[in-house]
């Protein structure tokens, strides 16, 4: 029991600290790394709630794959160039205030609700609760339609990403295309997006 509480506070502080880091750090690269710390803390919290499969998926899929995609894009667009000038004044003050009010409202809504289960640890569940077997059974029996919809959504997203991120010759600005044609270096094959930028 004591160990469980200790683990909850350590993981909770890691998750909160990671979240603060994402919002406050200037360098986007550090923001992504901070989100990885947040996700790992969250995975420990999932384990405390006996969601083993989701904890594993969180670490492997999120912290492993999605965050690597983020890191690639940060490296591609050049990372730390968020300007240091103060962001539009009103929102900078209003943002944290809105967040605080939102948190207070959510807490009041949760703690003021008359759900009896909130003050308990939940019923005793068997060792199979949250295991891949149970999740898989639920996905293929009760939630078959959402499961198929999710797979279709992933397909659409993959196709959409390819369509959006590919090079489009026809959609460039007319004068930019003209400059590109006039510059003998820019049109050569093998010169990527960075090379084309010099034509401007």
């Amino acid at each position: 029991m004591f160990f469980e509480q200790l683990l909850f506070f350590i993981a909770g502080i890691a998750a909160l600290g990671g979240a603060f880091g994402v919002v406050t750090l200037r360098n986007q690269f550090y923001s992504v790394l901070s989100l990885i710390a947040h996700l790992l803390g969250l995975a420990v919290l999932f384990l405390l709630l006996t969601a083993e499969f989701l904890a594993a998926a969180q670490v492997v899929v999120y912290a492993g794959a999605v965050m690597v995609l983020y890191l690639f894009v940060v490296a591609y667009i050049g990372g730390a160039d968020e300007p240091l000038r103060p962001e539009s004044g009103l929102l900078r003050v209003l943002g944290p205030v809105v967040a605080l009010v939102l948190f207070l409202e959510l807490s009041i809504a949760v703690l003021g609700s008359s759900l009896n289960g909130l003050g308990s640890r939940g019923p005793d569940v068997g060792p199979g609760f949250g295991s891949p077997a149970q999740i898989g059974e639920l996905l293929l029996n009760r939630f078959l339609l959402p499961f198929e919809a999710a797979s279709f959504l992933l397909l659409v997203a993959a196709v959409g990403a390819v369509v959006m991120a590919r090079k489009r010759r026809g959609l460039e600005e007319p004068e930019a295309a003209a400059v590109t044609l006039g510059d003998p270096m820019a049109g050569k094959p093998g010169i990527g997006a960075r090379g084309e930028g010099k034509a401007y």
Partner: protein
Amino acid sequence: MNVEWFVVLSAMIFAIGAAGVLTRRSPLVILLCLELMLNAGNLALIAFSRMWGNGDGQVFALIVMVVAACEVVIGLGIIVAMYRRRLKIDVDSVSELRG
């Protein structure tokens, strides 16, 4: 640990993510803050799933993770397209569609 602790922690993470979406201007960091908010939702779903001793909430959380992955892919695709078109990577400067 009582379930309410987890739910209040999830409310905190959600509020931090909302503050990030409101204050940051880089679309990449805004996507990261959206991830924070989705993860807060996931934590609440799993906490409630534990509260009822029922696995449905965990399936919801899994679907939310799928949706988050799709959102990341599309968002990063837009950011890469912005970079290719030499636009400034700043949500305030991409306002052509503003009414």
